[in-house]
């Protein structure tokens, strides 16, 4: 295999006395869908923030596409191909859905016509086509999460970081979501996703990384991971121990 697309090397993040990430070293290969799971507060979103460049890690480095991007600002990382969604959605509330997505598309082109076309494509792809001209503030939460994905996709990322975008869906809707992520991967995008719903994670991801208390607990095939007693105690609870 060639170099992984993303690697974190001994990444630490401290908030005052609290250690949100401690010595996290993970890697994500090209074309993979990797699930990042773990208890609430384990440091998953924090790790996303470090990868996307919202914060500089207290310690450690982040290698993307063979280059050390630790010192780069978020915008620059986006230009290099890291797209992300926010767990607590951050839509541009006074802009329409399509305009939200155009902002993303503008990283790759400055020709408005192209950006707009791209945005429409992405919206259709995410099933938000009919909502294109609605103000983002009028969307319901699940739509906003889809908008997050659409926006990130419009930046044509190599790596897409999805932070709980498939929550709050009925199981049937979740299946559509799963298909969507697969389609994304099929266009050549590598996906690193956080999700708590095992019904979604299990069938979707190629590999799962479990964080607990800021550290990598286990990683491996999803079917193996969910059988791991450590993961069951820390994360899944008894029901899933049998159910999975």
């Amino acid at each position, binding site marked *: 295999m060639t170099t992984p697309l993303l690697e974190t090397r001994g990444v630490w993040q401290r908030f005052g006395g609290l250690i949100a990430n401690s010595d996290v070293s993970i890697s994500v290969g090209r074309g993979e869908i990797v699930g990042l799971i773990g208890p609430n*507060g384990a440091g998953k979103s924090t790790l996303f923030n470090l990868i996307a460049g919202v914060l500089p890690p207290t310690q450690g480095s982040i290698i993307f596409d063979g280059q050390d991007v630790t010192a780069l600002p978020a915008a620059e990382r986006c230009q290099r191909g890291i797209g992300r969604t926010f767990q*607590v959605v951050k839509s541009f509330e006074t802009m329409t859905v399509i305009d939200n997505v155009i902002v993303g598309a503008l990283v790759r082109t400055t020709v408005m016509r192209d950006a707009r076309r791209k945005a429409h494509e992405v919206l259709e792809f995410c099933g938000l086509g009919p909502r294109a001209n609605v103000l983002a503030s009028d969307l319901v939460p699940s739509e906003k999460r889809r908008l997050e994905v659409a926006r990130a996709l419009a930046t044509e990322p190599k790596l897409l970081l999805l932070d709980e975008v498939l929550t*709050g869906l009925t199981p049937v*809707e979740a299946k559509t979501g799963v298909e969507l992520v697969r389609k994304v991967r099929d266009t050549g995008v590598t996906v690193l996703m956080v999700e*708590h719903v095992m019904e979604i994670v299990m069938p979707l991801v190629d590999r799962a990384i479990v964080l607990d208390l800021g550290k990598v607990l286990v990683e491996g095939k999803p079917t193996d991971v969910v059988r791991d007693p450590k993961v069951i105690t820390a994360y899944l609870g008894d029901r899933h121990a049998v159910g999975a």
Partner: protein
Amino acid sequence: MLSVHEVTTAYQGLVAISAVSIQVAKGEIVCVAGANGAGKSTLLKSIAGAERPRSGTVSFDGTRIDGMAQHIITSRGIAYVPENRRLFPRLSVRDNLRLGSYLYRGEADREAPLDLVFKLFPRLQERLEQRAETLSGGEQQMLAIGRALMTRPRLLMLDEPSQGIMPKLVDEIFQAVKRIRDAGMTVLIVEQRMSECLEIADRAYILQTGRVLMQGSAAEISVNPDVRKAYLGL
């Protein structure tokens, strides 16, 4: 205890729920389910007074509460945990919880429900001084429920409480809901995780595009073939 009668609510002319009627009896756990955009949240908002119904009535303990200001409805014993939680982001966990008991300020036992809250969510006790906005997603959900409990509601309304919660805790939250009911409260819960929810619920309603599609006891609903196909994905 709660009776929603033919309530219609619209957003700038766009009808989100129309002529929805539901009943919740004291001591029940009632689950409301339905697809995205079916109007579940709107229903809760209409009860809580966050949105004003265009027509229909909402009665609580025999008094009409539709049209009342939201804070009055809260003070009458309905606590509402909205989908987006609405914590006070820059206040500490402690202050968020204290504000929950604002209605009981000056009373000696204002912090009484705190024991229950910490028993249900010990994590909160560890994070008392942290600002709410820096909590992880799951922790925020716990705080939102905890804050609602501090208002000592008789009816607790939860909008998708399992969202963003780790599997182990989802169970715990549902168990907590059960314990909350056992502590004497009534619970109206909107959930996508129907199977888990139906396990603890007494009755359920299914909404579809703003109307009640189906209602019945939890047991009936969970074996209904249509529901199994359309909502449980089985």
